[in-house]
């Protein structure tokens, strides 16, 4: 009994950490510019496919493909931001939604064109396969790696936000954009960098996701819903919020699938709707 609970918690946490990597970029950029980017999971897809191709065709080792996936995600988001998105910062919610959904649709078609619609798989190194023994139970090594890596990333992000000058600028811009501009902070540049970072993290998440939840062109939309839930529930612009919400969502989803399989995703949506009604700005959001 305890074993299964711990197992569900562990798997749920791993899944949650993955969702965190996928979501944190969107949360911060939404908090900064209020720009609704529904193509965010396309960046994850780019990272995922990049990692698959690099480890498959190009024979790169897994650990080398991860930073490459980050760069791929960051690069694509940077290009998109510079060329297209920046014209839409003052557009309405609806226009931003539609535009980015359009981009997402196109990315799905592009992925299908280049890679086909099959589920992709990735070669993970030997030391990540198999299980690790602890407290009399066995835990998947890959998922353990995922949890550790994500927490490290979260810690790094919090450090950067709290301790660096760039982080201070980002926090100021999230808090009050007009005031930040008034203080001479180059909000546009800070946003561009943050956006690229967020895209990069999504790309990293996408690469790490392949071995755990798979990858196909539909990824851009399948996980978009979960990412949006994490962002909405966690609160815009909050790294801690994203972490908490992602962990909560991951564990709830796993628990739901394990203990109430007939409910499907119903439980998740119900929890989200309930949470949003209670706290429309998210658990840790401002306003």
């Amino acid at each position, binding site marked *: 009994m305890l074993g299964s609970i711990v197992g569900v918690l562990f798997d749920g946490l791993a899944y949650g950490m993955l969702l965190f990597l996928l979501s944190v970029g969107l949360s911060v950029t939404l908090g900064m510019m209020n720009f609704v980017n529904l193509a965010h999971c396309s960046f994850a897809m780019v990272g995922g496919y990049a990692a698959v191709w690099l480890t498959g065709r190009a024979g790169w080792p897994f650990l080398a493909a991860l930073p490459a996936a980050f760069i791929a995600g960051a690069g694509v988001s940077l290009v998109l931001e510079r060329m297209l998105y920046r014209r*839409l910062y003052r557009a309405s*919610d609806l226009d931003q939604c539609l535009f980015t959904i359009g981009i997402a649709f196109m990315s799905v*078609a592009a992925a299908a064109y280049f890679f086909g619609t099959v589920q992709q798989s990735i070669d993970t190194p030997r030391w990540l396969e198999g299980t690790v023994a602890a407290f009399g139970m066995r835990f998947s090594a890959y998922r353990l790696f995922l949890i550790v890596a994500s927490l490290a990333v979260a810690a790094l992000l919090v450090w950067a936000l709290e301790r660096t000058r760039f982080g201070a600028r980002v926090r100021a811009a999230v808090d009050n954009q007009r005031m930040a501009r008034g203080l001479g902070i180059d909000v546009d540049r800070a946003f561009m960098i943050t956006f690229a970072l967020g895209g990069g993290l999504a790309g990293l998440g996408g690469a790490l996701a392949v071995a755990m939840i798979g990858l196909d062109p539909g990824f851009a939309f399948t996980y978009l819903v979960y990412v949006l839930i994490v962002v909405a529930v966690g609160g815009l612009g909050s790294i801690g919020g994203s972490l908490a919400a992602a962990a909560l969502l991951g564990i709830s989803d796993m628990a739901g699938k394990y203990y109430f399989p007939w*409910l499907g995703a119903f439980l998740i949506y119900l929890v989200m*709707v309930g949470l*949003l009604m209670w706290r429309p700005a998210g658990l840790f959001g401002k306003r």
Partner: protein
Amino acid sequence: MASASAFFAGQVRWHAAEVAFWLATLLPFVAAPSYLSLASQIAITALFALSLDLILGYGGLVSLGHAAYFGVGAYTAGLLSKHWLGEPLTGLAISALVAGVVGYLSSHVIVRFRHLALIMLTLGFGLLLFEAANSTSAITGGADGLQGVEISPLLGFKFDLYGRTAYAYSLAVLFLCFLACRRVIHSPLGLALRGIRENAQRMPAIGASSRAHLRKAYTIAAVMAGIAGALLTQTTSTVSLETLSFGRSADVLVILILGGAGRLYGGILGAILYMVARDQFSGVNPQYWYFWIGLLLVAVVMFLPNGVLGGASALYKKRQ
């Protein structure tokens, strides 16, 4: 002051182009009899888009889950015909009522929110209903769709494969709902909705209860969406989970934006363009269809933010 009332009366008057349009909808009976099934699908989609226009184009509420009410109407009509009565008009009335009740109840929550929270709530609500229908497959048939839907003849006319009855029925219902919608738009509530869309902050300062207005509009929109869903069930004798899906919510959004939101005829125009295009390109791999839709969305937002109708009206104004 004659001019004050005259201004409003001028808005309500029927333009020649409108009359011509509605007369033209009768053409498929004689000019394209083999396309009557498609025509009735277009009419149903147009009605659905019209219902979304009321809350989005006029009220400013971005909903990513409007298919919820469409699906409720569809399943109600299907279940009614299977378990009780296959008579279409009764089924239509009851489905409209059920969808209206669901809309009314959900509106109390939905109109309290804006921006991301609103988008998420409507999305979540739609997904909730989808999952609920999926899970209760004993009642709804789940992923396989509802089996055993049997629609009786409409006033003596059978729903056959030629689609004559289907199109006549859908068109008549569309027209009646359109008249109702037109009435709402040109009523005080319609003006209030536009006020909310134009400047929601100002409304309390003129003594308006925005939420009460939005709830009313939302309920009316839900009724119309439910009617559209019921029509689909009754003209095709099938109900599938797709009627509750995010895909359907997204499609109707695309259709409305394409035609032009907040312009009464935008949904109808968008439906015609979209469905005809989809029919023409039906051989194409669905992946590639979504590429072009994506590109279309991007192009519309960048160059034609008010849809085809908006672009046309801007062009018209320039010529003057």
